[in-house]
């Protein structure tokens, strides 16, 4: 007879149902009653969505390069940002604008980045935060390294990284789990599971029942939450971040959500994704859900909603104008590509920089 030497389970948490009502048979965290806080976070979610829509529109009119939309991820992203302190370190992938807005990154800076202007990378917000990370899952290990630095220096800081369901297939992610486990690092790894890695669905990434259990394999406490439920996301994030901060080691949270947009503006999801699946996902989306809850609680109403939408459009338009003004009227010169390569410009590069100034015209026409 085999002896069971280890057994595991993965818990799933949802507090706010798609219809905006609280689930009945569960202990609801206190933050569900903190209406003021929820309203603030709701506003941020709406701002994020308004921003996203504008960014896609800017891309469609040729004012932005390829852009990665965050439509449908607002609860997950805002919760991640809201649970963190300024001194913590964020290592995002490329679509967690909601989290970054919490941390002080400006909308115009995000636009600059996707608009092909390097200055967007030098964003406002904590200077120790990492920039957008395009090579999938590599950011997880940077967060592990940051966490190791904090641990070695005995600082009460936490590193948080985000990876996609697709990215959870990469060694880097699993290696970050391993590092977090081996060194008991103050590290929180969030899988934002939006079900698709471009055209490859979650079911084709692997056949494990959850992605969270990859954390368990590495020895980390790991849970799943409804990623469209802001309350569940924030509750889980706060628990994990606080525990990590107090020396309890690393955590994995899988947030179950859905990508309501194309993968990026260069993608056409209709080629590979059934439309009824998308329609179904719209019924569960996070903004509508929190709004219904807040209205139900008497903490929000349509009048304030209308005001908010108007305000958000105004702020987003302002950010877009700032962006266009910067990149069109004050473009970064050709020398900028040399200036940040080294602390001090090496002789050889100084020569190339001088030559580039003599030949400033474009090459390599498309």
């Amino acid at each position, binding site marked *: 007879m085999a002896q069971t030497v280890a057994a595991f389970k993965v818990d799933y948490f949802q507090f706010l149902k798609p219809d905006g009502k609280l689930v009945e048979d569960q202990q609801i965290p206190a933050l569900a009653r903190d209406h003021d806080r929820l309203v603030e976070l709701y506003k941020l979610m709406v701002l994020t969505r308004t921003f996203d829509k504008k960014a896609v529109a800017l891309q469609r009119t040729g004012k932005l390069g390829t852009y990665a939309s965050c439509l449908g991820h607002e609860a997950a992203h805002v919760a991640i940002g809201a649970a963190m302190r300024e001194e913590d370190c964020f290592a995002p992938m490329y679509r967690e604008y909601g989290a970054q807005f919490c941390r002080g990154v400006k909308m115009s800076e995000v636009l600059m980045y996707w608009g*092909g202007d390097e200055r967007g990378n030098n964003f406002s917000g904590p200077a120790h935060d990492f920039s957008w990370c395009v090579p999938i899952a590599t950011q997880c290990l940077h967060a592990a390294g940051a966490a190791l630095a904090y641990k070695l220096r005995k600082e009460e800081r936490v590193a948080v990284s985000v990876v996609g369901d697709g990215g959870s297939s990469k060694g880097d992610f699993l290696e970050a789990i391993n590092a977090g486990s081996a060194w008991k690092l103050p590290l929180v790894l969030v899988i934002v599971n939006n079900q698709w890695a471009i055209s490859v669905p979650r079911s084709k990434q692997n056949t494990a029942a959850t992605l969270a259990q990859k954390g368990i394999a590495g020895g980390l406490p790991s849970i799943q939450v409804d990623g469209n439920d802001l309350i569940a996301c924030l509750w889980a994030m706060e628990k994990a971040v606080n525990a990590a901060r107090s020396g309890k080691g690393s955590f994995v949270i899988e947030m179950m959500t859905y990508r309501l947009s194309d993968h990026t503006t260069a993608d056409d999801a209709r080629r590979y994704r059934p439309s009824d699946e998308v329609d179904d996902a719209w019924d569960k989306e996070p903004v509508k859900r929190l709004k219904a809850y807040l209205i139900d609680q008497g903490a929000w109403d349509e009048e304030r909603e209308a005001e908010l939408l108007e305000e958000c459009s105004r702020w987003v338009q302002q950010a877009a104008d700032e962006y266009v003004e910067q990149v069109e009227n004050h473009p970064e010169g050709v020398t900028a590509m040399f200036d940040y390569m080294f602390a001090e410009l090496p002789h050889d590069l100084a020569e190339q920089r001088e030559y580039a100034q003599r030949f400033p015209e474009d090459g390599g026409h498309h």
Partner: protein
Amino acid sequence: MAEITLIEGVTMALARAMEEDESVVVLGEDVGVNGGVFRATAGLHQRFGDDRVIDTPLAEVMIAGTTVGMAAQGMKPVAEAQFCGFTMPMIDHIMCHAGRLRNRTRGRLSCPMVLRFPSGGGIHAPEHHSESPEALYAHMPGIRVVIPSSPSRAYGLMLAAIRDPDPVIFMEPKRIYRWQKEEVVDDGEELPLDVCYTLRDGNDVTLVTWGAMIKETMQAADELEAQGVSVEVIDVATISPLDMETIIESVERTGRCVIVQEAPRHCSVASEIAAGLADAGVWHLHAPVKRVCGYDVVMPLYRNEMKYMPSVKRIVHAVQQVLEVS
């Protein structure tokens, strides 16, 4: 006869190779239902099914490592990486295993794989999508590096790469994926690897280039011809192993050489060609060999990427410099 683009040349060669050899399989992220982010594998999944056109999990190390494994066991995998920047994690398997398997096993095992990916900049892509890492691959013993620059060479060289018994890195210049159309017969005829292609004959100067820079180089050649300079243009096509013979033969006649590449200059393929000329052709040179390259910097985001790229003006200027020396 069909008029096709460079990327369609790739697709046509993949389909032809899969049809004639059951052991050829295509794998990579989004290569199946979606037909690849650039549509290089469009239609193949419908035609050949799940077992021949495999959508992989998002994991380049896995793609590279399993490709080596399959190849060593008698399959002919053609793996796609979505962009050049994402092949960096694959280097471990390419360098430590693919390139050495035949040698390490004294010929007992081999690695007849192709790793193909779009490379180079110029399409306004986000960061890590626009690098030209041919020198990295060319530096690896046991690896062939092939870069086509026209629809017919894409077709012919891809067929040759798939049929080749050793590992081939097939870099596709994505900026010119859809630049020209050419009539290409789908006759299964491959083009020879390991040789340069002379695109234009001339007597005064040899321009050596490959991939997307063919475009600016040909334009520069046109401008120079209009000024009365007779220009020979060579498309290197196989970067490694390098056909120095063709280049030396040309430079022996013209006495002057300018090498044009999009990649950074330092320790690059252009440097290797210049060194090869110094080695063999120095007595025939009337002027120093010039390199017109990308700068030794990170490929800038798109607002400045065109300023990074060698321009027609830079090429013409370099040619004028070598012509001034008599």
